[in-house]
């Protein structure tokens, strides 16, 4: 699988001056303006001026190549950079993701904003401080060692009358300081970053600066971009996946008021009109003849898991073997086996895909909410065979889609249509189109097998996963997005995803871990192509692995929490105990907050209509550890599951903004709860049939837990170490929650659910089969 690191650029750097940057400065004007003349060479990450501008009034603007998908990363970037600079947070602003003025940090993805990209930001800010202190030393006639800096004001220690502001030192001028580093991530000056003990703004919780404009209606979103002469486009999708375009009857839409043009390329079809509602009307009305594919594109969703189990894998990873699992199973006192199933789940953005492209001045500007604007820029340039310098992407706020815009179909479509029409074109997908045709989180089947010895110790574990992840998109490559597939500009082989393996630190002496990718019959132009959905494989894999740990605990007649701690406390050789120590601390923190006391699992079944239970699950992602405990109420008459309380403990190292992080954890946890309870892509053998919010239900206000307790943990064995790291925080909580809910349902009912989602009908059927429906 390609990673975004493959896209680090290698040529064509050019310094962007202060004047050019000022066009996109929130202190001086809007990001969205009429297209500049271009061309748009890459900002040079090795120039300090590309990252930081300081003005005469002693305010600063930071230019970073990330995007904020609603988690407050922009606020965090300001905090870490202001802290390194010794400037007040309030005197800073942040510009993100405009490819012509912000260095290429890849945009967003992989929860790496702070873990990876935060460090070059800190280093360049520290370097700016070092340079400013040298300037101040010359101006004040005192050695740097005798200078004190606070809130952007440098003074001579012990003589406050000798002072000068950053604005007075460099305001409105360039630093002209060259940085070093083989790539953007490695960007560095010579100044060290601050130690944990020196940080002041990091760890505070300034309110997110983006929120006021989101609640007073003043924010201009990517959906709001409008320029003179702009046209509106809507797509016409094949009615059957894999259908071939035979003919278009353009006369069927010529009478639509405002009609401009029908554009097609291969099996890609769009209509373009003067007004938005006209384009919608034309797309509904147009007569297009399609030929169905000779063979069914995929099995129906009812038949999916049988198909996946029987299919010959497209790829199989080599099994990872620890110890001797076969002999350990042969001598085990008890063997437990279980199969788990997770369907395709959609990104299903609250606002469908959209972008506007403006081809004025023989350049191309794309206004987009793409989380990876640099990938979009490169991809569009290749797709349209344009020089990169003629293309820029201006990132703007948009509906959150948790990975959807990493395969930014609408951005490519708008660019294509704008060049075809020679006018600015705004394209937006319709709801049914988005829900049916967005990228999907891959479906999984997981077979688990565990062996316990006579004392109930877990001595052998077998994990074998199959993922329907045969055409995986996620980096805006020009030959992967849907319009490229439909227009037959596709690569020889699709990029296959991979079936991930469990992320835990359990010491199990004998293990075998195997992963396969299976394909569906239709490889290209399929609404079941996959993408990075908020930890691409973690929720599926962890549902299986952490449910199964509880099945083993039940078989061993052990408390699930104690069973886990025992597996973690045992000695392992990897990771020096670091991640294991943090795993133990995080689980214990969750247990303490919850008030967990050991008891039989499952508990004896209660009387009454509502059965209650608790469940725990734990995981990590990269270096971030999460433990979640869910309290559920199961209605044995209706099958409805309500998760009443969730405790979520997370150790992501150094926390930049505790309040903002808490909101991220709450939202991510509930997103996972939505996937646990409701979400499933359905399809027949021709098309996706879950196409709107009625057929693809998600979590609602009524499902919301009564209480969510977030516990931020620092489980580092040396919690005050000066170089305490900030790890990624966005996605880990999505991984373990589904298992925590399943484990709680088992505790409440004694019934084990091994198939996601836990919709009322499925729960009720399972309860009926187990004779649990009557009190």
């Amino acid at each position, binding site marked *: 699988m390609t990673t975004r690191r493959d896209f680090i650029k290698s040529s064509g750097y050019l310094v962007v001056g202060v004047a050019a940057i000022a066009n996109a400065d929130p202190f001086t004007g809007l990001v969205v303006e009429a297209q500049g003349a271009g061309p748009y060479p890459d900002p040079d990450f090795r120039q300090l001026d590309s990252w930081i501008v300081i003005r005469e009034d002693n305010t600063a603007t930071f230019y970073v190549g990330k995007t904020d998908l609603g988690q407050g990363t922009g606020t965090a970037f300001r905090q870490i950079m202001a802290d390194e600079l010794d400037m007040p947070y309030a005197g800073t602003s942040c510009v993100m993701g405009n490819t012509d003025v912000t260095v290429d940090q890849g945009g967003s993805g992989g929860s790496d904003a702070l873990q990876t990209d935060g460090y070059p930001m800190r280093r360049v800010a520290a370097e700016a401080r070092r340079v400013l202190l040298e300037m101040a030393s010359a101006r004040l006639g005192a050695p740097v060692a005798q200078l004190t800096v606070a809130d952007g004001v440098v003074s001579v220690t012990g003589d406050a009358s000798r002072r000068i502001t950053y604005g007075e030192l460099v305001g409105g001028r360039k630093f002209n300081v060259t940085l070093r580093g083989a790539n953007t991530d490695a960007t560095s000056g010579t100044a060290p970053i601050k130690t944990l003990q020196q940080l002041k703004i990091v760890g505070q919780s300034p309110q997110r600066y983006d*929120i006021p404009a989101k609640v*007073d*209606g003043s924010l201009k979103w990517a959906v709001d971009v409008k320029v003179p002469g702009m046209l509106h486009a809507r797509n016409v999708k094949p009615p059957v996946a894999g259908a071939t375009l035979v003919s278009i009857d353009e006369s069927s839409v010529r009478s639509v008021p405002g009609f401009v043009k029908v554009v097609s390329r291969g099996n890609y079809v769009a209509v373009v009109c003067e007004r938005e509602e006209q384009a919608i009307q034309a797309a509904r009305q147009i007569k297009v003849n399609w030929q169905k594919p000779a063979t069914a594109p995929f099995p129906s969703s009812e038949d999916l898991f049988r198909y996946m189990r029987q299919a010959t894998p497209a790829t199989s990873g080599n099994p990872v073997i620890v110890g001797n699992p076969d002999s350990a199973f042969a001598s085990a006192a008890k063997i437990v086996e279980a199969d788990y199933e997770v369907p395709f789940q959609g990104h299903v953005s609250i606002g*469908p895909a959209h972008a506007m492209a403006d081809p004025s001045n023989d350049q191309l500007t794309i206004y987009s909410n793409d989380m990876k604007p640099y990938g979009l820029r490169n991809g569009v340039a290749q797709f349209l065979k344009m020089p990169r310098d003629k293309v820029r992407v201006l990132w703007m706020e948009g509906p959150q889609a948790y990975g959807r815009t990493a395969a930014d179909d609408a951005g490519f479509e708008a660019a294509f249509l704008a060049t075809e029409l020679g006018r600015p074109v705004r394209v937006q997908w319709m*709801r049914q189109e988005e829900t049916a045709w967005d990228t999907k989180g891959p479906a999984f089947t997981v077979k688990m097998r565990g062996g316990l010895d006579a004392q109930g110790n877990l001595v052998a574990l077998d994990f074998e996963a199959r993922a329907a992840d045969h055409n995986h998109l996620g980096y805006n490559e020009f030959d992967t997005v849907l319009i490229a597939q439909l227009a037959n500009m596709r690569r020889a082989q699709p990029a296959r995803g991979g079936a991930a393996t469990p992320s835990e630190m359990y010491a199990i002496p004998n293990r075998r871990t195997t992963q396969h990718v299976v394909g569906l019959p239709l490889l290209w132009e399929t609404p079941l192509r996959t993408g990075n959905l908020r930890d691409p494989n973690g929720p599926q894999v962890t549902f299986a692995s952490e449910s199964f740990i509880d099945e083993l605990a039940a078989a061993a007649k052990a408390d699930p929490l104690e069973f886990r701690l025992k597996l973690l406390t045992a000695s392992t050789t990897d990771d020096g105990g670091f991640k294991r120590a943090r795993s133990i601390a995080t689980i214990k923190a969750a247990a303490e907050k919850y008030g967990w006391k050991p008891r039989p699992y499952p508990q004896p079944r209660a009387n009454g209509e509502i059965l209650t239970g608790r469940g725990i699950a734990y995981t990590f992602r990269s270096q971030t550890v999460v433990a979640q405990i869910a309290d559920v109420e199961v209605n044995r008459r209706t099958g409805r599951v309500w998760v009443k309380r969730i405790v979520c403990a997370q150790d992501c190292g150094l926390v930049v903004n505790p309040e903002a992080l808490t909101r991220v954890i709450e939202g991510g946890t509930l*997103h996972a709860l939505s996937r646990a309870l409701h979400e499933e892509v359905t399809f027949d053998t021709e098309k996706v049939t879950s196409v709107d919010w009625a057929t693809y239900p*998600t979590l609602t206000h009524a499902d919301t837990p009564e209480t969510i307790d977030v516990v931020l943990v620092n489980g580092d064995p040396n919690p005050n170490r000066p170089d305490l790291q900030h790890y990624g925080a966005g996605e880990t909580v999505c991984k373990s929650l589904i298992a925590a809910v399943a484990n709680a349902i088992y505790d409440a009912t004694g019934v084990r659910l091994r198939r996601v989602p836990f919709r009322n009908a499925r729960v009720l059927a399972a309860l009926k089969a187990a004779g649990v429906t009557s009190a």
Partner: protein
Amino acid sequence: MANFTLRVNGRTHTVDVDPATPLLYVLRNDLDLHGPRFGCGLGQCGACTVLIKGEAVRSCIRPISGVAGAEITTLEGLATNGRLHPLQQAWIDEQVPQCGFCQNGQILTAKALLDRTPNPSDAQIRQGMNSTLCRCMTYYRIQAAIKRAATVMATARLGSDSEVIA
């Protein structure tokens, strides 16, 4: 095409559009308002919500011909004299939004709810807000913000009552 006169946020506008045009496109594309947004076009999600005569209305399925002359309020019109509505302030105090795309509908649906039920129970909030969807799943904070705003508004009413009595 036909002329329609709209009252939006206290201002009068005349537009020349097809009578079947959903109100949403007129608000966004002709009146340059960014509060109401397209989410589904089916009246299912609430992202396009506006207030008409105090009721939360889904503008994506309301033809322009049916709302001519009605008093329409969008998110931009909720503040008075530059002062945010208590719900908007509560949204900031609770730091509710993640991406924020749905919050127009959440805030305006909550406004209609509190106008009807000034001191709602948890169950009434869940019921009243239930068909307004958020994909970032900020429901927990939305509900907290509604309770916070209800308290603030109740206190303000008490204050104004005592002034009348005095």
